[in-house]
């Protein structure tokens, strides 16, 4: 019987305590950030959409290899050393990126691709507003070389490679010659020594 009254009292009391709390909060300041007009602070290292600086990318494929999801696809072409402008940070460019594509529908935004990049070409940004009505729009192509350009590069490369080949052959020949000479010289020297 005592319990009955105690329970009743507790019921009324705790309800009143709760009502007091909610009433206080009813008149307290709200914390809402009204999104399209106001912005919630985003730290600069937030991992949202990736951004690739094509001027910095050397197509080393490290990001693609580090990606657990395989959402980065890169196609590259060997660059001609003399004709190729260097990367933005002054490093030598070894490869032309002909096609660099990230599928943000697959990406898991883990940031693993940015860590191995030697030139900081690929970076996370704070940009997150890119919802679309078509899934294809989520595939971002950062570098796409036109066919002519590609062809030109290929031709250059072919010429360069041919040259290289020739050069190499010549070099090899020269080397072989030199070696042969050296050999004969050595032979002669030994002879002389004898």
């Amino acid at each position, binding site marked *: 019987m005592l319990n009955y009254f105690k329970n009743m009292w507790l019921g009324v009391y705790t*309800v009143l305590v709760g*009502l007091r709390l*909610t*009433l206080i*909060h*009813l*008149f307290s300041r*709200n914390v*809402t950030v009204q999104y399209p007009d106001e912005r919630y602070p985003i730290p600069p290292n937030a991992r949202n959409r990736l951004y690739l600086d094509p001027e910095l990318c050397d197509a080393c494929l490290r990001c693609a290899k580090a990606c657990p999801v395989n959402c980065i696809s890169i196609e590259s072409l060997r660059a001609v050393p003399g004709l190729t402008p260097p990367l933005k940070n002054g490093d030598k460019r070894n490869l032309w990126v002909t096609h660099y594509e990230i599928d943000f529908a697959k990406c898991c935004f883990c940031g693993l691709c940015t860590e191995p990049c030697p030139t900081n070409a690929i970076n996370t940004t704070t940009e997150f507003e890119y919802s679309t009505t078509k899934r294809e729009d989520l595939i971002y192509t950062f570098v796409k070389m036109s066919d002519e350009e590609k062809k030109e590069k290929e031709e250059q490369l072919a010429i360069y490679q041919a040259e290289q080949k020739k050069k190499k052959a010549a070099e090899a020949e020269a080397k072989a010659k030199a070696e042969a000479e050296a050999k004969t010289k050595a032979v002669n020297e030994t002879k002389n020594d004898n």
Partner: protein
Amino acid sequence: MEQNFVNMLIENPWIAALIIVVIPLVFVVIYALIAILGELKIASFVQERLGPMRTGWKGTMQPVAEVVKLLQKEDITPDAADKPLFNLAPFLMFAAAFAGFAVIPFSPYFLPAGIELGLFYVFAIGSLGVIGLVMGGWASNNKYSLLGAMRSVAQIVSYEIPAAIAILSIATLSGSLNLNVISDNQSGWFWNWYIFGGPGPWWKILVIPFTLGLGLIYLISTLAETNRTPFDIPEGESEIVAGYHTEYSGMKFAMFFFAEYANMFIVAAILMLLFFGGWNSPFGDFLNQWWMQPVWFILKAFFWVFLTIWLRWTLPRLRVDQLMYMSWKVLLPWGFVCFFAVSLFVMLK
């Protein structure tokens, strides 16, 4: 006392009757819109949010948008459902809820149907809605709906009894079942309200604890009858998906919605008429002109609505057996105690 100002203004009885019917209907719609918005906004403020902000000025047009949307929604009748009953239920429920407005005096000069047994009538017509509810729940052919409906009915039926005792006590105290008369009895300052024992000699303070208790009992019962937290078990989202209206969509769902809000207003109005002086100003003759009386009445009713919303965002939900325990073992005995005390007071007076 003239019952209807409309009858004085308009000669033709047919048009007058039509207007008298239409006024509560328009009121219900407007009131429901305001209540919906209030519910969203108060919930948001309690939770330190803002609520609807992007529809009209500070989101005030939100309920209108919802009605426009609900008008266009597809009206699905599930294949497995019992079609005639499924389609009938929302109308029955709305009709029942709306029928209650016939005897609600918004002011001494507006009482749609001036029958002597107004209080009794409101109470009886409420049970019609129960049938609509169980009809909808059954016809949906969905276990959640049926469970929700059966819980609802059990809940409403058992909480009708404490509510009836509270009403009966006030009827004893006032000696009338006519809501206008009951309201008129409480004119004057707010200590003439029945929650404070009604008009009477100084020793009425002896009865004040009991009338306060009756007010509390009636308040709790009305919460249960309108399925509001902490008694929202029939619609308890976490257990049975959305209660008896799980399968309803579009306009039929809107009918349920409006019926619910109309019901809420009716119980609020009864609470105000019985315990809080009805359309009387709380401050004697101050602002007690004929045009202020409906305003007072509606303001008081809205206070009840605010209270229920406030409670809703504060309390968790009871369990079914605890609900029954509360009705039969807490409210009913205390109701009897209060009833006897009030009767004694009336006899001695």
